[in-house]
C-alpha cells in the first residue's frame, strides 16, 4: 500500500496527471487492453469456436447500417465471424507476440551490451560492428528474412505449431541492436565508477558485477526504448501477418484480420478491414504517445 502511495506522490505520477495526452493515451490503451484480456468473458462471440459459426451470418455490415444486426455490432466477415470478437481475440495475440518479442530483444540486447561494454576490446568491436551492420537494414526486412529462413529450416509439420515462436524470434532479433547499443553506452560509463571498482576489489566475479551491480543502473533507458519498440514490434507482427508470412487464419492476429478483410475490399465490405486497422492504429498510437511521455518524464533535463 505504501508503495502505491509513494508512487502516486512521485514526480513521474505528477507529470502523468498533468499531461492530457498521456492520460488520453492511457485511457485508450486501457480500454483496448481490457477488451483483449477479458475477451473470453465479454466478447459477444467466440471466433475460434468453429461450431458456433453460421455461414448465414456472413458479410453482415455494422449495426448502424440498414442491414446490420444487433448481435454483430461491427459486422461479420466472410465466414460469419463477428468482427468485434475477432478484434478482441486478435489484439490478445498481437500483444502477446509484441510483448514477447520486445522482451526477447531486451534480454538479448542487455546480454550483448553488458558483455561488450564490460569486456571491451575485440569482443566489443566485433559485437558492435554486427549491431551496426544490422542497423543499416530496416527491422522489418530482417524480421521477414529471419522468418523465411527459420520457416525453411523447420520441418513442414512443425510450421503451424511453432509459428508464434518463430514470429517472436524473428521480430525480437530485428530489434536487439538498439538495446545493445544503449546498454553498452551506459555500461562503459558505469564501469569506471567507484562502486564497480569496489566490487572488483572485494573479488566479485565479472558476471556477478555485471548482473547485480551494473545492470540495475543501466535499465532506465531500456524501459523507455522498450515502450517505443513495443509499438514497432506490434506493427512488425501486423505487417508480417498482412504479408502472409505471419500467423495463419486459424489463429488470427489483428494483422491477419486486416489481410483477410483486404480480399473483400472490392466487394464493398470495408468493415472487415477498417475496424481491425483502426484498432491497430489506436493501439500503436497510444503506446507510442505513452512512450514519448515516459521518455520526457524520466529525462531530468526536461524537468
Amino acid at each position: 500500500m505504501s508503495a502505491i502511495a509513494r508512487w502516486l506522490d512521485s514526480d513521474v505520477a505528477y507529470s502523468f496527471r498533468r499531461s492530457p495526452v498521456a492520460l488520453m493515451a492511457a485511457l485508450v490503451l486501457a480500454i483496448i487492453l481490457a477488451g483483449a484480456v477479458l475477451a473470453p468473458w465479454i466478447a459477444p462471440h467466440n471466433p475460434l469456436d468453429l461450431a458456433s459459426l453460421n455461414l448465414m451470418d456472413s458479410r453482415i455490415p455494422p449495426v448502424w447500417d440498414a442491414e446490420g444486426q444487433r448481435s454483430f455490432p461491427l459486422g461479420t466477415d466472410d465466414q460469419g465471424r463477428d468482427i468485434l470478437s475477432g478484434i478482441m481475440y486478435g489484439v490478445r495475440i498481437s500483444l502477446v507476440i509484441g510483448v514477447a518479442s520486445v522482451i526477447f530483444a531486451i534480454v538479448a540486447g542487455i546480454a550483448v551490451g553488458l558483455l561488450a561494454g564490460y569486456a571491451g576490446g575485440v569482443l566489443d568491436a566485433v559485437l558492435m560492428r554486427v549491431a551496426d551492420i544490422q542497423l543499416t537494414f530496416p527491422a522489418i526486412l530482417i524480421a521477414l528474412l529471419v522468418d523465411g529462413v527459420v520457416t525453411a529450416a523447420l520441418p513442414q509439420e512443425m510450421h503451424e505449431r511453432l509459428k508464434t515462436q518463430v514470429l517472436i524470434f524473428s521480430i525480437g532479433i530485428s530489434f536487439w541492436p538498439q538495446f545493445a547499443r544503449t546498454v553498452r553506452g551506459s555500461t562503459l560509463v558505469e564501469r569506471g565508477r567507484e562502486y564497480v571498482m569496489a566490487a572488483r576489489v572485494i573479488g566479485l566475479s565479472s558476471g556477478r558485477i555485471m548482473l547485480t551491480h551494473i545492470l540495475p543502473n543501466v535499465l532506465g533507458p531500456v524501459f523507455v526504448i522498450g515502450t517505443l519498440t513495443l509499438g514497432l514490434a506490434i506493427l512488425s507482427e501486423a505487417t508480417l501477418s498482412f504479408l502472409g508470412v505471419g500467423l495463419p487464419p486459424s489463429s488470427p492476429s489483428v494483422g491477419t484480420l486486416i489481410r483477410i478483410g483486404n480480399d473483400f475490399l472490392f466487394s464493398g465490405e470495408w468493415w472487415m478491414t477498417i475496424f481491425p486497422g483502426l484498432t491497430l492504429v489506436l493501439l500503436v498510437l497510444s503506446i507510442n504517445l505513452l512512450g514519448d511521455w515516459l521518455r520526457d518524464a524520466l529525462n531530468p533535463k526536461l524537468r
Partner: protein
Amino acid sequence: MFAFIVSRVLQAVPVVLVVGLIAYAMFAFVGDPVTIMLGTDYTEAQRVALVKQLGLDQPFFVQYAKFMWAALHGEFGISYRLARPVTDLLAERMPATLELALTASVFALLIGVPMGVYTGIYRTAFSSRVFMIFSLIGVSLPTFLIGILLILVFSVWLQVLPSFGRGDVVRFPHWSTGFLTTGGLKALILPAVTLGLFQMTLIMRLVRAEMLEVLRSDYIKFARARGLGTRAINFGHALRNTLVPVITIAGLQIGGIIAFSIVTETVFQWPGMGLLFVQSVQVADVPVMAAYLVMISVLFVLINLVVDLLYYAVDPRLRVVR
C-alpha cells in the same frame, strides 16, 4: 577526397562479405536443393551427379567463395519456385521497383521540404497546425493500412485510380517503364503516395525542426540586419543550412523505401522485386532470398557512400583538410 572514398569503400567490403556469408549459409543449411530439384523419383547416380554439378561435395568455404564469385558476376542460381534463373527474375522486376521508389522519393521531397519550410516559418499559423496533425497521423499509420485506405477511397468508392499492377507499360530490351503512358502514370500514383507518405512526413518534421533551430541563429539576425529579403533569408540562408541532416535522413530512408516497397508492392500487387521477395519467403525459395539480400546490401552500402559524398557537396566545412 580520394582517400576518403577509398576508406569508405574499404569499410563497405566486409559488410558485403558478411551479408554474402549469411546468404550463402542460407543456401547451405536451409532445405536440401537436391531433393527439391530431383522431386520424388530418382536414382542414386542421378543424385550424386546433381550434387557434383551443384558443387555441394566441396568444402564450405570453397563453396562460399564460388558463390560470392558467381554473385559478383550476377549469377545466383535458379529459383526453386519458378525454375528460372534468379538474375533474370530480378532484372525483369527491377524497373518496376526502381520507378516506384524513385517516384515515391521525389514525391516525399517535393511535398515534404516545402511543407517543412512553411510550417517552420509560419509555425503558429492554423494551416501549420493542420499540417502537423496530418504528419502525426502519417507517422502512426502502418504502410499497408495507408495503401488499403487509399484503395478504398480512390479505387472502390471514387473509382478514379487503378488499385493493382503497373497499368500500360512500354517495353524496351532491358527496361520496362510506366512513365510514358497515361495508364502507367495513373497506376503509379497510389503506390507511390503510399510508399512516400511516411518519408514525406519524416522529412517535413525534420525540415521544420531544423528551420526553427536555424532561424534563431545569429547569422539569420545578421542577414535581416543587412536588409536581405525574406526570400533570400529563408531559402538562401536558412534552408541551405538545414540540408545536411535532411540529406542524411532522406538518403538513409531510401533504404527504408526499398524495404517498405515490399509491403506496398504486396498491397498493390505491383510486379516488382519486393513482391517477388515476399512470394519467395512464403515458400522458402532460398536462391531468390539470398540474391535479394546480397543485392539490397550492396544497394545500402552504395546509398551510404553517396550520402557521405553529398555531405561534401553541401557542407563546405567538411572539405577542410584534416
